[in-house]
């Protein structure tokens, strides 16, 4: 039995890292622009489809993953530049609905381009198969998901903590009024921020493709969970998302041992409790 628990723990880590990547992107957007990105799921799905398209052309998986980041990032940049920027003075609700509408249009566009049945991709042979650990089989791809997600977050960490641009992003998120006063190019920063956040969602979609496949609606459940992670981790804390993502992935996996049908319900109960008892989440400040 304990080996089963370990198996679920490892499984939970992998899935949790994927949640973390999604939530990291969401956190950047919420932090910089103060708007919950309801198009995040559609961007996840877009990334997955782009990854599929590129890999299907015969290009290496790595290139496909870059594409999975780049295309949604570009879309995100455009959404900010031509959409949200114009709505900056408008009511909050309108900004949210703009993203909702875009999400719908984006998802349907995916269907128009790639058809209505989903697509799937076999992982490259290097990442296929499993490690036989004796007490459990560990699919190699799950290990890859964990490593790739962690790398992704680490790269972004480096960008944000160790570069000048990154410090501006941090300022924009943690102390936006001050950043404006200091004359930092907020407009450009916001475009970059949305692009980064959207790119993360797309990349998560690409990484998840060999595991979960892709369909136009595959991003929606991911997005819902990403919001739970965001709340649990705390607004204003980028790294809270990472810890919260891991935690939720593990909780979800472990709960399938006890009550599988309740595992998703449990996530939202946790979310509600956090919002009521400690709205700033585990690491947030505001």
């Amino acid at each position, binding site marked *: 039995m304990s080996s*089963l628990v370990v198996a*679920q723990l490892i499984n939970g880590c992998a*899935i949790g890292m994927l949640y973390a990547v999604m939530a990291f992107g969401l956190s950047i957007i919420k932090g910089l622009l103060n708007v919950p990105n309801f198009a995040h799921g559609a961007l996840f799905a877009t990334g997955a489809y782009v990854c599929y398209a590129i890999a299907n052309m015969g290009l290496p998986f790595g290139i496909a993953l870059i594409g999975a980041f780049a295309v949604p990032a570009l879309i995100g940049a455009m959404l900010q530049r031509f959409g949200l920027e114009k709505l900056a003075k408008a009511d909050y609700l309108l900004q949210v609905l703009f993203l909702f509408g875009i999400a719908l249009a984006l998802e349907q566009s995916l269907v128009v381009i790639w058809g209505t*049945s989903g697509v799937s991709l076999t992982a490259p042979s290097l990442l296929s198969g499993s490690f036989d650990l004796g007490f459990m*089989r560990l699919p190699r791809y799950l290990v890859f998901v964990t490593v790739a997600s962690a790398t992704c977050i680490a790269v972004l960490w480096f960008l944000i903590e160790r570069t000048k641009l990154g410090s501006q992003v941090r300022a924009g998120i943690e102390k936006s009024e001050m950043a404006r006063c200091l004359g930092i190019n907020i407009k450009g920063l916001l475009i970059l921020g949305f692009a980064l956040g959207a790119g993360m969602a797309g990349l998560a979609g690409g990484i998840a493709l*060999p595991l979960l496949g892709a369909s136009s609606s595959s991003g929606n459940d991911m997005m819902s969970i990403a919001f739970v992670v965001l709340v649990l981790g705390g607004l204003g804390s980028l790294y809270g998302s990472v810890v919260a993502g891991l935690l939720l992935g593990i909780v979800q996996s472990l709960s*399938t*041992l006890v009550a599988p049908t309740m595992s998703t319900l449990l996530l939202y109960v946790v979310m509600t409790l956090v919002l009521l008892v400690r709205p700033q989440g585990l690491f947030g400040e505001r």
Partner: protein
Amino acid sequence: MSNFQFNRRDMLKALAATSGSMMGGATWAQSAQGDLNIAVLSQFSGNYATLGPSILRGAQLIVEERGGKVLGRKINLLQRDDEGKPAVGVRRITELVENEGVRYFTGNASSAVGLAESEIAARSKVVQFAGGGSDEFTGARCNDFTFQWSAHPYTACSSTLEYIRKLHPNAKRIYTLTADYAFGHSLLKYTQALAAGLGFEVVAGDRHPANERQFTQYFNKAFAAKPDVVLLLTAGADFLAAARQLHSFGAKNLVVGAPWAAEIDDLKELTPEMRAGLILGLNYHAGIDHPVNKSFVVSAVKKFKTVPTYPMAMGYDTFRTLFLAMEKANSVDPTVVAKTLEGWRFDSVHGGTQIDAKTHQSIRPYYIARCKAASEMKNADDIAEIVYQGNKPQPVELNDCKRA
């Protein structure tokens, strides 16, 4: 804000609403007296949007074969999209029956949609020839006007297990992954009922909620139970995700069976490595050796340049049966035709078929296919070969239908 201002503003709004609604009214079609209106109500959008067009084509084929008429009346074939959702299906069939005078319909891919529609069929007294794998159609929710074209899930499970037993005389332990709704529950119920009789034991199992994307945690549990056979009692996108992830575990000697998971076309979404060796249950395949099927396949290939699969066969065969029944009854009245169908033995695309008088279940064979490895495939469409055919009907004592 004076009284008068307020009044006018709202008058304008009201007029706009009315004129807007009048434009909507213009699209509903009329049909001549004496025509027979039939419909294909199926999925034309959403995840299984290829099903609807296929079923429609089958229906168009049989209507064309008959010169567009039955008993001297012109046949009007309508189509609507149920989007795979019960609410939409109910809405559409209500519109079709009340606004378009449709009296016979087929096409549901999802059991939930078909079951919701069956209530309308019963109340409005129109004949429904349903598809789908839930045993409730001919069980607890049977009624005078709903007929089931697909095989019974009992037959599906028994055929699958019989074949696995044939191929693997020593396999014993089964793990089941079941979709947590009516359709899945049916399959599980019958798997459990049949296992012991064939020398199997269901050692472990899990239910997964619909539209689950992560199955790796269930498979961890599965492997802990050391099964010889994994049965995927699920369908559609869930089945594809499960098959994909099961494959990532790389278990070499595992027998994977899916009694009612997908039709051959759907398997194209998986790569050959993911599906090699998979044992799949099917409601239809083009190679059925019977004159009715052979001529159907020839016509389909001639008209649509494609070998037919289950949806097209369903669209064709359901209406073919209904038209023959109308001729036998010499009437297009649904109540009369329904009575005629009960207990009737006739030839369909499956060969000899009978419709159970009480439950309205079609009694016909169920086909088992084995997916080929990449090296065995002659071309991209050569996905699986038919290896077995079973036809054990549901025992009477397991049936819940309470019709007279």
